[in-house]
């Protein structure tokens, strides 16, 4: 009887507690979930919660809300929409932080500590154990920025209805902007594409390209991998870059776009 109780208790615990067999691999770094747990409790638990469900004590005060790791739905990925991120994706997000949110860059933590955190975060969802790793989408070499590329990107911006959320001028004030919610029903605002190259998942051209082809899971931002060819995605990237303060001037495109 005692043995059965212990087995039942063991099964119960194994279901309710994160498994520490989880590891992460970032380059040559191997992250350890057990070490990551201590770090998580120090740095992350107040927002993301003891159970990783995004219900930490600060969560009610935060906008946007902290990520719910139990859903294993992540905005910033190099993998197709709906799939799990790679360990490196999670590592990069921890390192970079999420701009314009409460998630700071955690670069002051050592690389090993960040790898350990990735390993522990993966314990909150069984998806990481059940689903095979997915290869990152490839990003083709960036063609040179040109007035023609920017013009094509501007046209695609209109044709693909990007403007309905991001606004005609990319200021994040499209007609749908105020109606958007994330996957948990919380209001979410589209990015103001004119407010400097400060995007959630990185500020490089490659990062913007990646956002367009992977989409930001858990948000209304879809993946355009099926609807745009890679060269068209680059055109949109160039258009977005041209929207930055001084961007048009830098690219010598201002007059061109005005039709002068």
């Amino acid at each position, binding site marked *: 009887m005692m043995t059965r109780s212990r087995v039942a208790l063991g099964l119960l615990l194994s279901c309710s507690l994160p498994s520490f067999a989880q590891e992460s691999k970032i380059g040559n770094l191997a992250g350890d979930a057990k070490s990551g747990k201590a770090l998580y409790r120090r740095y992350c638990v107040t927002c993301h919660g003891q159970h990783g469900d995004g219900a930490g004590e*600060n969560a009610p005060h935060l906008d946007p809300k902290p990520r719910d790791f139990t859903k294993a739905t992540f905005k910033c990925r190099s993998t197709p929409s709906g799939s799990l991120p790679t360990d490196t994706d999670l590592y990069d997000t921890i390192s970079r932080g999420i701009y314009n949110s409460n998630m*700071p860059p955690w670069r*002051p933590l050592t690389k*090993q500590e960040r790898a350990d955190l990735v390993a522990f975060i993966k314990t909150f969802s069984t998806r990481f154990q059940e689903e095979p790793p997915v290869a990152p989408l490839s990003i083709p070499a960036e063609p040179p920025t040109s007035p023609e590329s920017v013009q094509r990107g501007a046209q695609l911006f209109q044709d693909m209805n990007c403007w309905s959320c991001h606004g005609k001028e990319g200021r994040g004030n499209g007609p749908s902007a105020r109606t958007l919610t994330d996957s948990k029903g919380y209001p979410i605002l589209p990015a103001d594409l004119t407010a400097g190259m400060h995007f959630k998942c990185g500020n490089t051209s490659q990062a913007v390209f990646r956002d367009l082809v992977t989409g930001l899971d858990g948000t209304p931002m879809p993946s355009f991998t099926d609807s745009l060819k890679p060269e068209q995605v680059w055109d949109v990237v160039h258009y977005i870059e041209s929207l930055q303060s001084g961007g048009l001037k830098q690219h010598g495109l201002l007059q061109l776009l005005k039709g002068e």
Partner: protein
Amino acid sequence: MGIVIVKRIGIQLLALGALLATIQPSFAIPAFARKYNLRCSDCHEAWPKLNHFGQTFKDNGYQLMTGRDAPIYQQSSYFPIMFRSMPQWHRETDNRVATDIVPGNPKKGQVESLVATSGFDINGIDIVTAGTLYKNISFDVQPFITNKGDISLLTYFVRFDNLLNSPWLNLTVGKFALDTLLSDDRELMQSNVGGGYQAYYFNPIGDRNGFGIGNHQLGAELMGHSVNDYTRYSFSVLSSNDGQPSDLPSTYDVYGEFTQGFEAPKLGLETIGVYGYLGERPTYFQTSNGVPIGGAGLGNRSFSRTGVYGLWYFGKFDLSTFYLHGQDNVFLGNGVPANQPSRLPAGAAGPTWNGGFVEAHYTYNPQLILISKYQTVQMSRQANPATRTALGDLKIWTVGYRWYPIMSSRAGLAWHQEYARGLSVGTSPLTHQNDITSSFLMGFDFDF
């Protein structure tokens, strides 16, 4: 001569005692935690001791670099202010206090006796208001109210960060703590004997120089750091007045510091630092009716404080090690005006000494830290060759722990217990034997 030395020793011990009893700066700042919704443990190994994330936040000008650092992103009711105090019970002993044989009648003579005192006490109140005025512009104002109600301004500065969009260029102007990763302001020990870093304030017996590298100084600092804050430098130009406002000395001291961190696999971040302070102080003053005119010092002579330090992490265990070499000019060391060289004793020389400490921490978890510290300062050359070489040497042992039952993004409360024992060579007031002091302290350290 003997009486003069004893008087000087007495004055210095009194000054040291007053310093330790009154100045217990804090700098764990829940106002930042409230602003960013972070717990104390995000920025502090155990408050007030910063961890590397907290140090990076400080070096970024109190910014997390999330794009929401400017005050415009805060609710208009948010005001960045923090209070800290520690109601406590403590017991102090000194084995060689000059006491009257007949209480109240010094004419009957004095003997050295053990004096023990104990009771409930407070250590004053730290008030800190600090934050950002705008993106990349921060400020810090820190009044301190002593346990007797006197108020002093420890810090007040404005800082301009990321000049030319580079983390390598940050300018601070005002009164500030000299840049170091081993800040005396964030020291964990709190007792009269064990609190503070003695090497930061040590000056030889009879020395005219009252400089302390832990004292906040007036001036301008240029500092920079890598994005991950592993590489840091700072360079300061400071008024030669040890941070005393209104005294305009017309000469300047300089301070420089460089630190480099490197990751040790499976151990953590290891950091080494070097620093140097070069300054000068007047040896006499212009006077008016015999009273020195503030700031009108003459006969400046030089001094220096240089050294290295390290922060060594081995998982939950870490060591802070610090070494300082001090050197004062012969006139400063002997307390003789530079225009009266004939008053120097035969064979007089600039005093030199070495000091430092090893502080060990075991962070069981963010809410419990065990602490021990060994400090020593040893004279290597006295200003007056007739003086015993070891006179004034210090050795202090401290152990303690801090437990943080309340740690939220709004406030913190710590239960603190500590025992410290110190030995000062040859400084007993009558017989010039070793003076042994001890402190036992327990109290509630709260921060809101």
